[in-house]
């Protein structure tokens, strides 16, 4: 079942094209990483999905139009826009009371359970909590909501590595199951790599790469090419080449492992490498034009 389906999704701000005709399909039970440089259109795409901004084109989220049917949709969708949006004046207990009061799918006991694992004091105001604690609180509120779709836009921005790791661990262990879908954006690509089931690169309002992680792992390899093999390797048309400590590292798509092993040491390409290869080369090409 498709949780999100978009055809020709467009969004224009004045003369800036934020989304340039996106086609997209996200199934149930996926964890999709939406990755792109600053200003690529990630947040605009998420805002359209969340019914926060009007758009052109076709978009269905959980079978509904997010702009016109936003109120019903918000019972089944949850989102964390970034770490700093919890109101600073609210007390932890008030935040729980309020969400319990207005959200039909909020499980208060679950939220209390998550909070019990932290050192967050129920009587504290958000402004008294550290940034990491605010993120923990927000995550506890969100994870206690039985939503079908969870959208996380830079949920760990400005948090230290311990909190970031903890954040994704609880998301995977305590929240994710096969009937939910999570979409997340972040700049710390390496940290979420092992979490994702799918990855999508967005650049200048277009989706330039869209693969499942299995596909990524079986298709893309990086080879640290031995100096004498460089010419032979280049003949195989790597999609990207970079120099590290005097050795050429080349990224290949769709080549057999043994063939590559003859050229040098082979390893699976990481998302960050792919990102640099795909977005970086496009940026260079566009710059050269």
């Amino acid at each position, binding site marked *: *079942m*498709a949780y999100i389906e978009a055809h020709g999704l467009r969004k224009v701000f004045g003369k800036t094209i934020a989304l340039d005709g996106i086609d997209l399909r996200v199934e149930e039970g996926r964890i999709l990483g939406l990755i792109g440089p600053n200003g690529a259109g990630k947040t605009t795409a998420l805002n359209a999905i*969340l019914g*926060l*901004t*009007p758009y052109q084109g076709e978009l269905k989220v*959980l*079978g*509904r139009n997010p702009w016109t049917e*936003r*109120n*019903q949709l*918000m*019972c*089944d969708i*949850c*989102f*964390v*826009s*970034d770490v*700093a*949006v*919890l*109101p*600073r*004046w*609210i*007390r932890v207990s*008030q935040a729980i*009371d*309020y*969400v319990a*009061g*207005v*959200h*039909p*799918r909020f499980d208060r006991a679950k939220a209390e359970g998550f909070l019990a694992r932290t050192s967050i004091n129920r009587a504290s105001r958000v402004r008294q909590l550290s940034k990491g604690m605010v993120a923990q609180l*927000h995550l506890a509120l969100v994870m206690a909501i039985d939503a079908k779709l969870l959208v996380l836009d830079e949920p760990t921005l400005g948090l230290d590595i311990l909190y970031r790791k903890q954040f994704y661990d609880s998301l995977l262990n305590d929240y994710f199951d096969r009937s939910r879908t999570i979409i997340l954006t972040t700049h710390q690509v390496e940290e979420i790599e092992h979490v994702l089931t799918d990855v999508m690169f967005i650049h200048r309002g277009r989706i330039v790469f869209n693969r499942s992680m299995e596909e990524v792992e079986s298709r893309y390899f990086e080879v640290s090419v031995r100096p004498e093999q460089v010419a032979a390797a280049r003949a195989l048309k790597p999609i990207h080449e970079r120099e590290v400590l005097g050795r050429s590292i080349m990224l290949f798509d769709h080549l057999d492992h043994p063939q590559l092993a003859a050229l040098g040491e082979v390893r699976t390409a990481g998302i960050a490498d792919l990102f640099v290869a795909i977005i970086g080369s496009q940026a260079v090409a566009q710059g050269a034009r």
Partner: protein
Amino acid sequence: MNIQANTIQESSQQSQAIAVIPASRRLYWSVRRELWENRSIYMAPLAVAALFLAGFFISTGHLPSQVRAAAALSAAQQQELFEQPYNFAALLLMGTTGIVAFFYCLDALYGERRDRSILFWKSLPVSDLTTVLAKASIPLLILPLLTFAITVVTFWIMLLLTAPVLLATGLGVATVWPHVGLWQISQGLLFHLLTVHALWYAPFYCWWLLVSAWAKRTPFLWAVSPLAIAVVEKVAFNTTHFAGILIHRFGGEDYNAPFPMPMDQMAHLHPLMFLTSSGLWSGLAVSALFLAVAVRLRRYRDPI
């Protein structure tokens, strides 16, 4: 595809079956939320009432001489004399909550965009309409009722505070208490608050709410911008129609004279005349329009 679509519909129907939260409950929690955030709604009038009571208690020192002097006056004059501080207390508290309402409205839909917390509120299934209505209910309903409650309690405390000095000087409370028509004053006050402060002034609050949903900065300047229209009109055409509208709205209908003591105003205000006045209904229509625009704006406006 059809099967999929059916599954989605079924599951969403299912989810609606589990998930019913009546709109009234969302409104209730949204109003509570406003009271959590804006404690000045009740703290300011409470503080003013406390200060007033402290001053009033000190003033009871003069009461015995006043009582003796009043013995020569007629019953009506005595009533006017002894009710004076009560009218003043009511006026003071109404002024306080008026100021609270002004600042509350200006921040209501602006503050949440400035601190980006609107993104949190919008992540919950509470519609823009519910949110704006909850915010509008503060100046339109909560503040008038709260002002009434605090003022009436203040009245009773005032009355009790006169007891020690009256008893100590041997004058007895009967010299003063029967002249203070608390029931009458309170009734008039409630009527005045609900008609004038809630209904007649509604366009002001709703304009300020609209402004707070609109402004990217300095909502205060937008809030008072209608004054600029009045000035431009005066300069350009040497007329004062718009200023007249504003003054009429602020001062009230003719039969509801603007600035004498509020309780006197009660005497001039006939319920039927008020409820059938075109000014009331046109004001309410304009208020509804302002609120509708505020709801739309909250939908479209991004955090600042």
